[in-house]
């Protein structure tokens, strides 16, 4: 059935999204001569008072949030068919999910500038949401939007530009998860939030506080950083808010952002001893944030330099790996190398020389699938051996991760030293 040409005073255009509850149209506000977005509650749900109330409440709640990084609600209305609709600011540059999909198809991986641009926009948005005494509950790549025009130059305006959030763009958070939450509690459709970006406490009924959003922010950045050559300190910073227990996460969005920023701090802030002269894209961690969130039994590891060696890969075609599993493996807490009858181990030399390939072999028992994490930050799945060639001296590590049949993540780490040529 073709949709109506006009809803209220809005000239309805293309459908730009269809969710389980609402259809999203591009529309023209002829009075104000502006293009807007109309989010119209599905007709069948419009007769359900509970969903109706949630939908309207979401509009009113979003309206209370004042931030250029949270989508603006211009108006709320009702169609001739009693469907409530929200009139929203248009994100003319699409979603973060689309942007990253396009970039990945071109072989892109996230740079520190990309991670920072997304982290800062997200943190500001989520802070504003929390300041309005709301929990977003559905932060995911499809709910993070891009539009033309930064209102304020970012704090990193002088740094390298991000290709994800371009210099002429602004990141915006959309759609609170109110309706999806309802779906969860009433068993209507899917669980609240979006798969892979839903904190554990949102997997079932119960109370959810602002720290649920911190979990989702970490999951989102983990997804963004998938396959990228980034400091290990970032993984540590993100891992803290991925803790199952909200009490172990960052206390708020600002603390989360501080940790992320510190983990990506430019090389000049590192202690001189750790400042290698490796290739430009080599990782620069070593001055990670105080490791407050993760297990604290390893203070000596804090200054460990990882990846000051850049290794060239001499492997066949890359095998794609979904963000969820690989990233989770990357971030897994307190790694163990065996669980039940399953185990992983890596065999290979403990030293290497620049320019000379070494081969590492997976010893995997009790599971059919595993993933290598290489010093370049890339992943390889289900291959028995990897061959690596170091391009500069230093120390490095390779990890091998898998899941035991009971779901427990198991991890083996192989560290090795790379000596200079000759």
């Amino acid at each position: 059935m073709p949709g109506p040409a006009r809803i209220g005073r809005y000239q309805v255009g293309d459908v730009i999204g269809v969710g389980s509850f609402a259809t999203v149209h591009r529309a023209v506000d002829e009075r104000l001569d502006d293009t807007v977005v109309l989010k119209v509650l599905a007709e069948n749900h419009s007769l359900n008072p509970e969903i109706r109330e949630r939908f309207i409440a979401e509009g009113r709640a979003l309206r209370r949030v004042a931030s250029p990084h949270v989508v603006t609600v211009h108006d709320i209305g009702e169609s001739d068919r009693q469907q409530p609709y929200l009139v929203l600011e248009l994100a003319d540059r699409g979603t973060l999910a689309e942007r990253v999909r396009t970039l990945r198809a071109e072989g892109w991986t996230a740079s520190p500038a990309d991670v920072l641009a997304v982290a800062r926009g997200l943190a500001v948005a989520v802070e504003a949401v929390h300041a309005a005494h709301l929990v977003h509950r559905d932060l995911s790549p499809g709910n993070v939007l891009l539009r033309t025009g930064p209102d304020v130059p970012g704090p990193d305006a002088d740094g390298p530009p991000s290709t994800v959030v371009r210099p002429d763009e602004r990141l915006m958070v959309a759609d609170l998860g109110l309706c999806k939450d309802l779906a969860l509690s009433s068993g209507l459709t899917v669980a609240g939030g979006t798969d892979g970006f839903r904190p554990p406490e949102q997997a079932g009924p119960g109370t959810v506080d602002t720290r649920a959003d911190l979990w989702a922010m970490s999951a989102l950045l983990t997804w963004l950083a998938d396959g990228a050559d980034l400091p290990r300190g970032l993984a540590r910073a993100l891992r803290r808010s991925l803790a199952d227990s909200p009490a172990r996460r960052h206390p708020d969005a600002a603390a989360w952002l501080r940790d992320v920023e510190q983990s990506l701090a430019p090389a000049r802030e590192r202690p001189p001893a750790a400042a290698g002269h490796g290739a430009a894209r080599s990782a620069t961690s070593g001055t990670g944030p105080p490791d407050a969130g993760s297990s604290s039994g390893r203070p000596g590891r804090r200054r460990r330099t990882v990846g000051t060696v850049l290794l060239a890969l001499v492997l066949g075609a890359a095998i794609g790996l979904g963000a969820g599993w690989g990233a989770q493996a990357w971030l897994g807490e307190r790694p163990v190398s065996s669980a039940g009858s399953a185990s992983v181990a890596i065999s290979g030399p403990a030293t290497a020389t620049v320019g000379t390939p070494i081969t590492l072999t997976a010893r995997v028992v009790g599971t059919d699938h595993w993933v290598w994490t290489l010093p370049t930050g890339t992943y390889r799945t289900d291959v028995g051996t990897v061959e690596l060639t170091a391009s500069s001296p230093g120390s490095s590590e390779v990890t091998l991760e898998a899941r035991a049949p009971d779901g427990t993540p198991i991890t083996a780490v192989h560290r090795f030293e790379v000596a200079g040529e000759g």
Partner: protein
Amino acid sequence: MPEPTPLLDEALDRGDAVAARRAVSDVGGRGDPDRVLDLLGARAAAGSPLATELLVEQLDESGVVRRFVRRALLDESTVDDVCQDVLISVATSIRSFTGGSKVTTWVHRIVRNRVVDHLRRQRTTTTLPDDDLSPGDRMSSLIATRATVRDALAALPALYREPVTLRDLEGLPYSEVADRLGRSIGTVKSQISRGRALVAAALEDAV
């Protein structure tokens, strides 16, 4: 059970509307509106017409009903209509209120039902049979046509009887009712709304 509020209880026992209203505003003024509603709900359920009258008044005046309705509906005149429907439902079904929940919880359930009724009626595009009139409209036309209803109307307190008579029997617009009685249009609208609800309650009791 709500804590006893002796003055209000006694006033209801005596059927003393003036004293009961004063007691209601005293307790409500101390920032305990739920307690007043729960007490009135219990007494109304037990068959006190005065308690029903005060309950309908309180629910309307405090904005409780309107707030609930506005959660689900946007259009102002629709909100007015459904508020009227809710007050009628409250007045006619208060006998079924068991006190197992707070009055506001019970009212919220009624609001949702009346909202759905309203939406369904709106959606039906065919000519409406009489059954599909909203409770407010049906009561309005009943009042205009039936003798028993006129008796119930005659028994209403003057505060409500006058505006409902002018509106539903004489068919005057709200603005003229307001002029004649020297009250504001908002006051008159809500008095008519409550008055219809009370007529409905009286009819229910008569059955």
